[in-house]
């Protein structure tokens, strides 16, 4: 439909659902093509992170208690979901800035929400295989019972959505790519080491455990864990609320950063 107008040299309409969907598809194709060499590798790395965490941390324990095993199995799946948005995403944007393609992408006649949605879709594509493999490895490695319910679908979606937006806001709001890279590394470290995702919160000092009630990481773990298990997650509504607030806040921050840009 656009080709006739374009051939006639008439500017096409740049609004409406149809335009949005067209640009979303185009941006998704753009992102996937841009990453075609790196995409399989990134997926493999995510799979390794998920599976590796379970096998590796089990070595640390030398006989793991069942409650810890349940935390670790579900936690590893959550970590793969979070790391894509918070770690891989900002690093990719930082690389775009360093290579100079960043300004080009944002000069394209594409609604920013469509570009952001394409980015989130790409993140889901990268994250899901890692999560599934992590859970399978956990089932083989430990003698645990998962109790999967349908609520895992919105939980995973919201976790990737929120994580991606946090990373996106970080990557766009911070002008220097090296700083973004550094923060992404620290974020990875915080997620794996200082967040009650892979281990129960009572193992941490009290002040850190309280801080995590306001950060998104524990809530991400809670909603996904609630969809995979029975009886170890409480206060689920609060976790959903925390994630919603973080998502909206990061959307606002990204919008502000892009407008300024």
């Amino acid at each position, binding site marked *: 439909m656009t080709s006739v107008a374009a051939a006639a040299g008439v500017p096409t309409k740049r609004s409406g659902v149809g335009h949005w969907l067209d640009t979303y598809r185009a941006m998704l194709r753009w992102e996937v093509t841009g990453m075609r060499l*790196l995409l399989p*590798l990134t997926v493999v*790395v995510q799979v*390794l*992170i998920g599976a*590796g*965490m379970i*096998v*590796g*941390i089990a*070595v*640390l*324990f*030398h006989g793991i208690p069942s409650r810890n095993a349940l935390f670790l199995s579900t936690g590893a799946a959550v970590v793969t979901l979070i790391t894509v948005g918070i770690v891989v995403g900002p*690093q990719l944007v930082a*690389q775009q800035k*360093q*290579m100079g393609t960043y300004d080009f992408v944002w000069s394209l006649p594409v609604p920013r929400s469509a570009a952001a949605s394409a980015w989130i879709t790409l993140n889901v594509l990268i994250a899901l295989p890692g999560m599934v493999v992590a859970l399978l490895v956990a089932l083989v490695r430990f003698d645990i019972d998962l109790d999967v319910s349908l609520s895992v679908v919105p939980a995973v979606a919201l976790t990737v959505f929120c994580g991606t937006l946090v990373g996106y806001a970080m990557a766009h709001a911070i002008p220097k790519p*090296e700083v973004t890279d*550094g923060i992404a*590394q*620290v974020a990875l*470290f915080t997620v*794996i*080491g*200082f967040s009650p995702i*892979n*281990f129960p919160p009572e*193992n*941490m000092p009290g002040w850190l455990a309280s801080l995590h009630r306001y950060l998104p990481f524990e809530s991400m773990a809670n909603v996904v864990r609630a969809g995979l298990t029975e009886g170890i997650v409480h206060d689920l509504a609060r976790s959903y609320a925390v994630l919603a607030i973080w998502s909206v806040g990061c959307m606002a921050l990204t919008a502000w950063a892009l407008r300024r840009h």
Partner: protein
Amino acid sequence: MTATMAARHGPRFWWASYRAMLRFDLINLRSIIVSTFVVQLLLGAGMAYIYGFYLGKLSAPAATFMVTGIPALAIIPIGMVMVPSTVMMLKFTDTYDYIWSLPPPRLVAAASTLTVFTFLAIPATVASLWIADVRYDVSLHMSLAVVPAMLLVSLMATSVGYALGHGVPDPRITNLITNLIIFFILLFSPLVIPLDYFPGWAAAGHQVLPFYHMAVVLRASLTEGIVENVTASYLVLTAWTVGSWAIAAAVIGRRH
């Protein structure tokens, strides 16, 4: 140097170039020196805390074993992450070719980078050991062997990172490899977990890889009676160092 062209060979020229490149490297480093210190503390002292979060309570021997693995852990982010990513940044910002066009011999430039990073890694390593020691309250028996142990471990890590940064053509692949090294070292950590806990094939692999041996030589210098044989570990570390030099020399000696 001004009116008459100075000779561009001989030990005196090498020494002058080495000092000039040291200055160049140090000036280039000033913007990242604080962040490197923080990253090292996170991976060294931070990991000491994190292992505690995962494991809950630790027995005294397990705590000693873990604490004495921390210095090796703190050295890895400099040598195997910071060094390759510094090279990577040079490639991204196109200063890579500029540096090789400078008059100092290329091997002198390499020697300068190795020197700077080897020593850069030491302060935060010591700080990490101290913090971990305070956290777990273990009793250490430090001997003079800690000096050669720390220098060799740091030089080895820096050399491997340098070879990695130069040897892998695509900086994005380098980035990925450094991420993987960090990840596997933190998780399948032969630094803080006895090798007997690992499946046989993994334990065998760690006899060849440098990581386990880094912890062995450092642990031997910090304790009495835990480590029995360090000769093999010193040999493996030396082999990795020299091997990395060979790779780096082959890559940077090639002209475009």
